[in-house]
């Protein structure tokens, strides 16, 4: 069977490498977290994960605690533009408008937004407005401010509605950020409510992905993925090991 250009792009996506390393994917009812210092590229990764779902025709809700919706829209446009630069992809992305119809952005002001209210609105979007999302992206939630209780609420919600939820977590503390098992020290208290935890770290001039926890098991592992510094896409790390 021959594959369409789009199918090929989906199959060869570095995100398939990620899925393979975490037992086939995050999975419904589970919480995944990308953790790093500010400015390393978490938002780019989350948008890439969302864009990959959209390409597969799967609806995504993008929850953001940042202030401007138009910035998020620009992120998506940029990521799709980068994807379109891959050989022969331009025509496959002609239906960009169609793809993007499957994405809803929900923006909350951090100070005013309690998790109960955020989940109420999310539920209204998915249930009342029948938006059939499977994946929810949550960018910019302050873990330190929210606490494990809030993440647990998200997890219960994800289980009830059959969603997989990817978070970004900004690490703000003093060095060392990670303990000797590679666990971000600020997130130690959250391990029980997180299913998959991945850290992003600078190694020289590249950003690497390290798997810290895989569906409840502590399983430190280099994911052999990196963030392409020019496109800000997740890419396979093809260089030889250090």
């Amino acid at each position, binding site marked *: 069977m021959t594959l369409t250009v789009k199918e090929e792009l989906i199959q060869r996506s570095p995100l398939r490498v990620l899925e393979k390393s975490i037992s086939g994917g995050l999975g419904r009812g589970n919480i995944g977290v990308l953790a790093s210092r500010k400015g390393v590229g978490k938002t780019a990764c989350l948008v890439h994960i969302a864009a990959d779902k959209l390409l597969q025709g799967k609806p995504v809700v993008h929850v953001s605690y940042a202030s401007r919706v138009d910035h998020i829209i620009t992120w998506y446009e940029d990521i799709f533009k980068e994807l379109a630069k891959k050989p022969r992809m331009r025509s496959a992305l002609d239906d960009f408008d169609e793809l993007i119809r499957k994405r809803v952005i929900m923006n909350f002001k951090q100070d005013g937004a309690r998790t109960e209210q955020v989940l109420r609105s999310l539920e*209204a979007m998915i249930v009342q407005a029948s938006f059939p999302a499977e994946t929810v992206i949550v960018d910019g939630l302050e873990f330190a401010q929210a606490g494990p209780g809030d993440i647990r609420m998200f997890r219960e919600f994800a289980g009830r509605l059959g969603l997989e939820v990817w978070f970004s977590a900004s690490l703000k503390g003093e060095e060392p950020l990670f303990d000797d098992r590679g666990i971000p020290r600020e997130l130690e208290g959250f391990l029980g409510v997180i299913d998959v935890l991945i850290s992003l770290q600078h190694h020289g001039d590249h950003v690497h992905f390290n798997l810290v926890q895989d569906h409840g098991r502590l399983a430190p592992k280099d994911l052999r993925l990196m963030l392409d510094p020019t496109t800000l896409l997740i890419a396979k790390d093809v260089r030889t090991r250090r």
Partner: protein
Amino acid sequence: MSSDIARMRNIGISAHIDSGKTTLTERILYYCKKIHKIHEVKGKDGVGATMDSMDLERERGITIASATTNVAWADHSVNIIDTPGHVDFTIEVERSLRVLDSAILVLCSVGGVQSQTITVDRQLRRYNVPFIAFVNKLDRIGANPFKVRDQLADKLGRNAVLMQIPIGLETAFQGIIDLVAMKALYFDGAEGETVRIEAIPDELAAEAAKKREELLDAASLHSDELMESILEGRATEALVKAAVRSGVASRGLIPVFVGSAYRNKGIQPLLDAVVDYLPHPGEVENRAIDLDAGGAERVLTADPGAKTVALAFKLEDGPYGQLTYIRVYQGRLRKGDELVNTRSGQKIKVGRLIRMHADTMVEITEAGSGDIVALFGVECASGDTFCGPGLNLAMTAIYVPEPVISLAIEPVDKNAADRMAKALNRFTKEDPTFRTHVDAESNQTIIQGMGELHLDVYVERMKREYRAEVTTGMPQVAYREAIGQKIDFDYTHKKQTGGAGQYARVIGRLEPLAKGGYEFSNEVKGGRIPREFIPSCDKGFRAVLKKGPLIGFPVTGVRVVLLDGQYHPVDSSDIAFQTAAQGAFRHVYMKAKPQVLEPIMKVSVEGPTEFAGNVFATISQRRGTIVSSVEDGTFSRVDAEVPLAEMFGYSTVLRSLTQGKAEFTMEFLKYGRVPAAVAELLTEQHLAKSRKESPQGRSERS
């Protein structure tokens, strides 16, 4: 009154609906001694605010047509246009912006930057209009001018800076602190007419100092002189004002003023700000298109000695005949002058020249460059340019969107029919987004416009102002048809019925054109179709595109490539080739995967967060796509794209779902494909209709 251009201001007052701009205008007129009593918008005194000159506006509490008025403040002459807030009437806002040099953006201190504000901001950007902001309604519960300033920065990306801070808020709102003069201002007297200047209250001194720092920081970016003087600790009031003024002119700084028009607080300082910070007409560069030089742009000069250039931007039918509002861009306008309407080539003689106040007028003999006045008895359409002899310029065309909705109307009797015709003639001249035609098949009069409310208002005005009673049909969406793929055609038109015959053959292809519209490309070689018949083919295609075979709506996005053909030395004619083109199109159209397109509207709904879920549901029930939702504490806003066809009656639904606490705006976004099921329904309806209208028509053709 001074005719010195430096002492002239042309300002618009733009805002979200219900942010209180009519109330604000009323107060301005009062303090400028144009009126001697204040009336509220929904006046209990039965009079209504002075600027809402139409009965209908008074009844609905909204401002529809912009009345212009002239006031004097601090020895300056200020022309004010009160612009409508509802998005259905944005053509009025756009026209006003075109003729104004600057604006006051009014914001509600509770609602802040709302969807309509964003629309207005976009228009201000499009016409590059410098403006100052006024945060109104500080007496309301939940008032927060600091939050509104932040929203101007966050949501609109404007470099907004507070020029004043309030003394108390909500019911405790007493006065304001001027951060330039560093004084407290209170407004005494029954109507706040006396401004009492005091020292800043001790408890606010620290905050005032801090906010002044912010103001100086922002202003100094626009003046090196101010920057230096701040460093030396000798920043004067004059230096700060000059720096802010220059920041406003470059659109790099938005000074924010505060107050409550309803409570008569903060209006006089706002008028001072108009004089201090907004540019005069001579400081604004205006361009015109030179019709004699192939559309090259010409910069106009405010020099009163130069030849006259003036723009008619609004027509109004008053009790004394047609009134034409005109802005002078160059030279001057004097009674008795002869001018040429460069669109029609008609000469006019300037008769009565009038300076307008909302409902009353003062006759004048001369208007200078930059002024806005009105003429009596001039035949023209809005958007026409008048020039002095020897000039042939047109002011840049004002952007006019295509209408998206139509309505069939029928007069109840013969008298009403005459009056209706008169009214329609007037309305179409006044408002370029309002159109009318008689449908050739149904013989019904069709009116077209930008939304349901837009057409409603004109139907009402027909009844009130022209006593033309009409019945209306169901609103009809302006659908479009388009082809989905390339298709070749080869069609021969042949007719032999005694006498001269008709013969024409056309060969070529139709191609979809993504950007819409129509293109015709002639690639016929070797005179296979004689040159004189090529335009006939073009004309034939244009004609047939006006009414698509699928659902009877115009076909857009088609490129016709004419490749080959045949003619007959005797029987070929202009008509024969036109008919052949039409035949060719009809013959292949259904094989080109024709599609039905519908107008998609950009819809914004704003209201308390508790109703967000209901709003989501209403959007998805209407085949809409939610683009984003923003929740800011108790306030939420949903942006969506929804087909216009599904939006009829939405205001009623929204009102009942949210106890009237949510409101929405919409504007045309794009044409999009309708889903297959809807397209099928429309096709069936069209078939049924055409069968009914021409029962024999079909058998004849077969």
